[in-house]
């Protein structure tokens, strides 16, 4: 990398915020996937103004910029590959700037950890619902960039449903502010929607303004165990068709349950084909209770072997701890896991689960299935050892077939992880050429030099 540029950056940010030792570059070469690509330099800005200056300098030198938060992404979206360049890590922009209780909004810098943001607003009786499993180790900026989801999104919607405004550094360093504290706004194009989920390819989000809601006062959680995976899948639809909207409706298959029990020893029964975690919440204790009871009855009618209601906060926390630790716990079984997040119309859940199991049987590699069944968002995880070439080859073929299965039943590639590097090869079959062309025009208009997170989203 040009030493001139490094000197300029060190002047702008201070030497401690510009990293380039081999060790520092090595640890910014990965995210939550197995992919790796080394940056040439890492910058840790502390203000939007600094981000703007970095972008100006990088644009002058035509050096790519790859934005990053805590690097928990599951699509290799924050890895500087294949181009290298500057990793712009926003973890030091971690201030909550304003909590407006009257308008129920929060304004925060992009590097605030999502769980910290939630804790802060909950102290004021407010609630920010999106809850990706990485809630304690991902940043709100990263959540916006990937339009993150989570279990509660079934009832409350995804990250994008809460974005009221953004501060975005554009590809030439200009600072754009979108939106304001209003719930409604049709003044011009919906730029919030454009930047949310754009994975840092259109602009760098440095500040967010989010809508909040009142904190639900009661929650009840139940675990339902099924001898048959089919029955569990059908139960999901039965509950929703009965007019109940649980906060969360999560599915775990046997492979997933075995892993989590092995990791956490929570006392889950492992001789079941599937379990559902159901949570209802709200401000009226009685209706929260009657909803969970009605859900439990439906589970029993649909063949559940056992339905257990969490009796206290500790039991409830245990169930969620199990669910949140699910994906990483799978790594106990194999050195690598390829976790996808296909999303299908919920009527198609039983069908797509059948197809997933057929794919696993065909290639002889395990696929653990769990996910947010209530909104059709499933996480099939292929377990394999990347060091064994034949396993790696199989895993890649399996991924392609998983995506085909999702598309065949009217689903999509990704519900909450994003495209990043890993799903690029499959984008065209999901969207068709015209949609990709439209999106390329948007990218071209906002980033003509192609320096913002190049190599992501679009097919090669």
């Amino acid at each position, binding site marked *: 990398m040009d030493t001139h540029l490094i000197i300029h950056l060190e002047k702008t940010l201070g030497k401690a915020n510009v990293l380039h030792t081999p060790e520092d570059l090595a640890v910014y070469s990965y995210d939550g996937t197995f992919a790796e690509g080394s940056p040439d330099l890492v910058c840790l800005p502390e203000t939007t103004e600094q981000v703007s200056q970095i972008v100006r300098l990088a644009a002058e030198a035509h050096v790519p910029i790859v934005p990053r938060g805590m690097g928990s992404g599951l699509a290799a979206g924050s890895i500087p590959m294949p181009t290298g360049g500057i990793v712009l890590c926003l973890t030091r922009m971690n201030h909550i700037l304003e909590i407006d209780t009257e308008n129920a909004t929060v304004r925060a810098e992009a590097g605030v950890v999502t769980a910290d943001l939630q804790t802060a607003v909950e102290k004021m009786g407010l609630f920010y619902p999106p809850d990706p499993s990485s809630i304690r180790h991902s940043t709100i900026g990263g959540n916006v960039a990937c339009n993150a989801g989570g279990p509660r999104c079934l009832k409350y919607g995804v990250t994008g449903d809460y974005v009221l405004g953004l501060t975005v550094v554009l590809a030439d360093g200009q600072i754009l502010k979108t939106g304001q504290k209003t719930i409604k706004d049709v003044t011009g194009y919906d730029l919030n929607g454009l930047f949310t989920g754009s994975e840092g390819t259109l602009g760098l989000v440095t500040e967010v303004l989010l809508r909040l809601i009142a904190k639900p006062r009661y929650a009840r959680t139940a675990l339902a165990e099924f001898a048959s995976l089919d029955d569990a899948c059908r139960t999901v639809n039965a509950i929703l068709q009965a007019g109940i909207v649980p906060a969360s409706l999560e599915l775990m298959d046997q492979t997933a349950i075995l892993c989590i029990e092995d990791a956490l020893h929570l006392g889950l029964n492992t001789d079941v084909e599937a379990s559902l975690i159901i949570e209802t919440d709200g401000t009226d204790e009685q209706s929260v209770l009657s909803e969970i009871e009605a859900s439990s009855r439906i589970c029993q009618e649909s063949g559940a072997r056992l339905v257990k209601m969490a009796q206290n906060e500790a039991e409830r926390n245990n169930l969620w701890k199990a669910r949140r630790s699910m994906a990483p716990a799978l790594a*106990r079984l194999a050195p690598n896991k390829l976790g996808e997040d296909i999303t299908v119309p919920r009527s198609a859940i039983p069908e797509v689960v059948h197809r997933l199991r057929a794919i696993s049987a065909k290639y002889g590699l395990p696929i653990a299935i769990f996910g947010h069944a209530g909104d059709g968002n499933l996480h099939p995880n292929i377990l394999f050892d990347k060091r064994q070439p034949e396993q790696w080859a199989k895993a890649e073929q399996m991924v392609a077939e998983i995506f085909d299965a999702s598309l065949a039943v009217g689903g999509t590639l990704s519900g909450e992880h994003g495209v990043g590097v890993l799903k690029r090869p499959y984008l065209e079959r999901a969207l068709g050429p015209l949609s990709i062309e439209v999106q390329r025009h948007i990218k071209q208009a906002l980033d003509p030099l192609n320096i913002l997170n190049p190599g992501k989203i679009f097919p090669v």
Partner: protein
Amino acid sequence: MMNILDSLEKPPEKEYLNCIRCGLCMAVCPTYREYLKEAAGPRGRVALARKNLEGQLELTSNLIEQMYACFACMACNEICPVGIRPAELALSMRHIEEQSSQTGWKQMLFGGLLPHPNRMETATLPLRLYERSGLRKLVYRLSLTRLLPRQIRDLEAMLPHLPQRPLRHVLPDVTPARGQEKFRIGFFLGCAQSLLFSEQSAATVRVLARNGCTVITPKEVECCGMPARGYGRLDLVRAQAKHNIEVFEKTDVETIVTDCATCGSTLKDYGALLHDYEGWAVRAAAFSSRVRDVSEFLAEIPLKKPTGRVDTRVTYHDPCHLRRGQNVWKQPRTLLSLIDGVDFVELPEADWCCGSAGSQLITHYETSLKVMDRKLDNLANTGAQVIASGCPGCQMQLNTAIRRRGVAVRVVHPVTLLDEAYEAENGYSPDHSS
């Protein structure tokens, strides 16, 4: 490079291979929280270790520094759903460095000094004289500490009120049980407890004796080995382990009790440390299985409830080596709640590292201070007059923090309060103002 590595004792592949880099460990790491950069967190350390062990990165001083920057608080070990132990891996990397290039001062300190209680006592004599001669009081009265550089001043503040004589010279070999003997237990005399907090260990022995224990205290024990381990000298740790195992094999005790969290976690680890050593595996495992932290032991036996009162608001800080090192955290709280008059209040983030981590206040001063400041903010929020913690390292760190802030909070071992409650039964009322 690989050739050199091949001949060294290094962590097996399973210690890092399955790290999927989810990042969960970063949520609980005290050093990551302060620096907010990847190399300062467990996931970064695991990646660096792996890349070195697989030949992609050299064993540079910068890489080793990242391993020494870890506080070994083990919060990452505990949270990892995969079973990776990043803190352990950081210690293993220090060991690798020591194997490839031994450092002279470590040989002197951990080989020449720490294993020899008599030399340790001689070496710390000036500190005791400083206290005993009244010089320390004078220094404080004249506010001379202000003349010291900041770090030295903080180190001075670490020192508790030093005993006149090390406990090793005071405690009898056998302390008889009060009343009928119900247990014969061995007491492991920790270096820091004996040299710096000897009154606490004396209290531990009193409390044990009151509860029917005949307490055997072998004087020829050596350092448990944790300091040498922290500095990558596993060879010395193993030598010390063998010595201590032999010492206790000569006694006829059922249980070995320690009142130092750090000693306890190391003693319990002897089984694993000597697992592959012929003639030692079984003996070490037997030794480790008999070790109990004092609060753990007292919670296992039918404990006499003290009838004396200690009227004060108390909070409790979990030593890393007790909570995560030994999964002992309910027991000290139970003991404290047993005492009449104690208004127990839970410390926010009680199980977060205090920043002591053995010698981080010396070697990583700035980080240690930041971590400690957070602990003290939490302490201030409780309004407690006393903070209990069964670890000399934590106690020294808390003492420093409290002096720096100029707040009036007393730092004690939980057993000290229990002892005071028993002593108060006889009409004696302990003074809590100091």
